[in-house]
């Protein structure tokens, strides 16, 4: 096994940090290590935490991490913040709420920029989850960027998805919209120390009442990360979902979907690199773009020509 991979599997924080950087930067050396660690991953429980910005995701993750640490579990945390579409830079500030965990050797926290990916995630996330899993983390908490209504890609990765809502964000119609509200395995009404919690919980309950075919009613947990309330109940509801998912094959289906999404992602990335980096193809692509802009060629015919060369 290559040195870096074996250090990762032994849980060496320096090596874990390094390999994550390498996959983020698409370094070719990362691929060998990723190949070797695959057989060591698959044991971690992956929990996605998503919801509006300012909803208290980081603080809640901090409290969850403490609860899992008290059970003796190792915890990996991936905190994603947006990358600037203008400068390509990012200010990653989720860690501020978690600094008390940074001297605990049973916790590994990594902040990531989205680097142009949409859907609230980042393209190397699959790899980063696999690295933390192979490094022996029992629990992996993923914090998405603060999302709007439609960034739901977290379900392609997480075994259990928590959707965080806070009181006072709108009326009952918001709750029956499609998208974000459909992906929750557990609803968390955070900031329960603020007024309006009962109403938010009641609106979510009545949304759930409208569903006509459900096998499992999504539980709603009111929490206050600030006052440390509702965390044990949330931990229990997450565990119950895991149990349900394993019993009903939901778990297997989701894991399969995750590997499918990951495989497609890798193939897409390689194809794009091939088309845009391979000298001969790049010339052809540039030439086609020129012709398209001069109206000598349409984009569909150009795509046929480029794919024709590739498949030859």
């Amino acid at each position: 096994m290559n040195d870096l991979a074996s250090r990762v599997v032994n849980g060496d924080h320096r090596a874990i940090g390094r390999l994550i950087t390498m996959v983020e930067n698409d370094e070719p050396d990362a691929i060998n290590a990723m190949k070797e660690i695959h057989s060591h991953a698959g044991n971690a429980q992956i929990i996605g935490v998503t919801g509006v910005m300012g909803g208290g995701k980081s603080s809640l993750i901090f409290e969850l991490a403490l609860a899992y640490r008290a059970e003796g579990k190792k915890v990996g945390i991936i905190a994603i913040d947006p990358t600037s579409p203008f400068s390509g830079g990012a200010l990653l500030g989720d860690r501020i709420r978690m600094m008390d965990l940074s001297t605990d050797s049973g916790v590994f926290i990594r902040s990531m920029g989205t680097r142009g990916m949409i859907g609230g995630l980042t393209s190397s996330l699959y790899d980063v989850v696999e690295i933390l899993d192979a490094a022996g983390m029992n629990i992996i908490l993923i914090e998405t960027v603060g999302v709007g209504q439609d960034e739901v890609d977290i379900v392609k990765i997480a075994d259990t998805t928590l959707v965080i809502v806070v009181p006072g964000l709108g009326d009952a119609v918001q709750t029956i919209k499609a998208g974000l509200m459909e992906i929750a395995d557990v609803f968390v009404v955070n900031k329960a120390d603020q007024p309006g919690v009962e109403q938010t919980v009641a609106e979510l309950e009545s949304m759930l009442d409208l569903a006509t075919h459900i096998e499992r009613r999504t539980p709603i947990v009111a929490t206050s990360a600030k006052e440390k309330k509702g965390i044990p109940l949330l931990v229990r509801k997450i565990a119950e979902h895991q149990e349900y998912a394993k019993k009903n094959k939901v778990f297997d289906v989701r894991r399969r979907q995750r590997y499918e999404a990951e495989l497609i992602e890798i193939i897409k990335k390689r194809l794009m690199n091939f088309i845009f980096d391979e000298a001969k193809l790049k010339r052809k692509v540039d030439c086609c773009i020129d012709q398209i802009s001069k109206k000598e060629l349409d984009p569909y015919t150009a795509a046929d020509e480029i794919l024709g060369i590739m498949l030859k």
Partner: protein
Amino acid sequence: MVKKIRVLVAKPGLDGHDRGAKIVARALRDAGMEVIYSGLHQTANQIVNTAIQEDVDVVGLSLLSGAHMTLFVDVVTMLKEKQMEDVLVVGGGIIPEEDVPRLKKAGVAAVFGPGTPVDDIVCFIKKNVKR
């Protein structure tokens, strides 16, 4: 994909003034870097562990309380102990002139006092980042 410079902007010690640190963090972000901000009141141990997990290229320390000779040096020493010599360490805040040579000798690559144009900091980091 191009490699991005990752920077940890950290506030060691007990002072609660982070306007300077936030301005620098923002400027580095606008220069295309990924900036992790630690928040206030960090110990040297917390800063070094964060640098390892985040695999940063640069640690920027901001301190206004006067404890820089202890805390900046602690961070540099602990980074060395963890074989993280390839991390560039820079400092800023209220640092008396006469302390700067000793800080540099200890391994702080540059000290940026009040009034430093942020572009100077960006340029210094881009030029001196070690990996």
